[in-house]
Every structure is written in structure tokens, then in C-alpha cells.
């Protein structure tokens, strides 16, 4: 039953990503050129409501569906891993014009070359795992 809920949430996510054009290479390119408010508007609105929802959860100590308190773990403190990792991700995001979520959406939309991007992203994750202990974190 829960599986169906996750599939439905993913489906809504896919439709939003596609319909908002956040999954379009062109919009990412335009965003990094600062020539449209579109992507900033999407991220900004998501963030404004996201902060509001998280504050509501914390203030009213809302529990999840299983009755467990919702605790959002703090990310570990570090600068190098977020900065270096972030820069590498940004290079790929701009070059391919897609981030991990939209990659799956575009697979569904039938763009076959996206599969190369997806396989390569899995490979990149795998190589990170191999090199993890040698990288500054």
C-alpha cells in the first residue's frame, strides 16, 4: 500500500518537474546566465514554503505516520566536502542541463540519450565510493 503512495508522490514530482520546465536543459542554461527569474522563482517558492512546513513540524512537534517524532538530522559540519563536491556537481548540472530528479523524469519522457547520462551518473557515484577515503571531507 505504501509503495503505491511513493509511486504516486514520484508521479506528481515527475509531472511538476516536467511541466515547470525545471527538467529542460534550456531553463538550466538560462538560469546560469541570470536571464530569467523562472528557476529562481521555483526554487525560492519551494524554499519559502519548505521553511514554513519544517517550522510547523518543529513548533507543533508533529509526528510521522508511524507515530515517530519527525527529527531532521543536522548535516555534518564541514566545508571542503560541500564546496568541492558542490562545484563538481554544478559543473555536471550545467553541462548536462539536468540534476538527478529530472534525469528520471526525462527517461520517462522518452529521451533515449538521457540513459547514457544516467548510467554515467551511477558510475560517478560508484567511483566516489571507491575514492571516498582519499578525498578531503
Amino acid at each position, binding site marked *: 500500500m505504501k*509503495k503505491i503512495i*511513493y509511486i504516486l*508522490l*514520484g*508521479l*506528481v*514530482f*515527475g*509531472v511538476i*518537474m516536467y511541466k*515547470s520546465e525545471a527538467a529542460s536543459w*534550456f531553463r538550466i*542554461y*538560462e538560469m*546560469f546566465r541570470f536571464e*530569467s*527569474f523562472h528557476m529562481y522563482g*521555483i526554487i525560492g517558492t*519551494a524554499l519559502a514554503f*519548505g521553511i514554513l512546513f*519544517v517550522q510547523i513540524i518543529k513548533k507543533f512537534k*508533529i509526528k510521522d*505516520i*508511524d507515530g515517530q517524532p*519527525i527529527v*531532521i538530522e*543536522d548535516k555534518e*559540519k564541514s566545508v571542503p566536502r*560541500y*564546496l568541492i*563536491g*558542490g562545484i*563538481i*556537481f*554544478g*559543473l*555536471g*548540472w550545467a*553541462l*548536462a*542541463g539536468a*540534476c*538527478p*530528479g529530472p534525469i*528520471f*523524469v526525462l*527517461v*520517462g*519522457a*522518452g529521451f*533515449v*540519450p538521457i540513459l547514457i*547520462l544516467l548510467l*554515467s*551518473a*551511477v558510475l*560517478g*557515484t560508484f567511483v*566516489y*565510493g571507491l575514492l571516498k577515503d582519499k578525498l578531503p571531507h
Partner: protein
Amino acid sequence: MDFIFQPWPWFISGFLIALLMFGLLLLGKRFGMSSNLRTFCSMCGGGKVNSFFNYNWKKESWNLFVVIGAILGGFIASHYLSVNTMPDLSESTKLALQDLNISSKNGYLPYELFSMAALSNAKTWAILIVGGFFIGFGARYAGGCTSGHAISGLSNLQLPSLIAVVGFFIGGLFMVHVLFPFIF
């Protein structure tokens, strides 16, 4: 009904994304898409090669159903809810596309990169492979991607996520403004 077929305005999309994140939190989960890439590695036996992939991935399998849904959503949106025209870009972006040899009369994605015909060009392969590799490597190194850091992490006012997002933009701006003229 016409509204459905038009691109959705940013404020509606942004609100719906936040609502999705809220829904996942209420289900006891966290919104993040790039962790699925690690799960794929583990499913394929990556744990035998490296301890980073040796974890109970079945616990994260709920996220794979989100992925299945996202694929279905992409199919439905592109086939039944869209006219698949090119995004309504600003004139200056269209002009800049000409310098990259990308036509401003494309569809949802540039044909020059994402059509079957484009795959006859070795450069297309190089761009897709390098781009994908950086996305996968960088997302895991940074501990998350756009959804995990820019939406989830920042919503929880996490400084590490802000550093990651600053990194995303340093990388993205460098790619578009400095490297693109050499690549395209």
C-alpha cells in the same frame, strides 16, 4: 483545461515541490533524489567491492518507488499534458544559444544533445558521459543534489546545504560562462 497543457508558473511548481517534501516528512522519509544512484550501486553488488555500498539498501527502497513514479510522471506529462514546445526563453538566451550552435527552434530539450541523431556525434557522447559522471560523483561527495540540499537542507536552514548550493553555482557558472565556448 488549457492551463494543464501550458507550462506551469513557477509559484505553483515551487509550492507543489514544498508540499511533496512535507508529505515525505510526514511519511517519515526525506526528500532527495541522488541517494538512489548509490542504491543502484548497492543493488548491483557494489557492497562486495567497497564498504560505502555495503549497507541495507532495502531500507531505502521506498525511494526507488518514487523514482518509478517520477519516470511515469515524465511519461504522462510529456505524452498527455504537454505540447512539448521549447520553453519561452528570454531573447538574450536565444541569441546566446546561436553561439553554441544550438537552434532556438528546438523542443523541450536541445536536439543537438538529446536526439537519437545527435548520438552519431562523438562529442554528444563525451558531453553526456562527463556531465553524468560529474553529477553522480559531485552529488555523493557533497552529500546531496538539488533536491537534498537546495530544497530539503535549506528548508531546515542547514549551513552545510548553503555551502553546497554555493558550490553548485560556482561550478555551474564556471561551466556556462568559461567552459561552454570551448565545448560547443
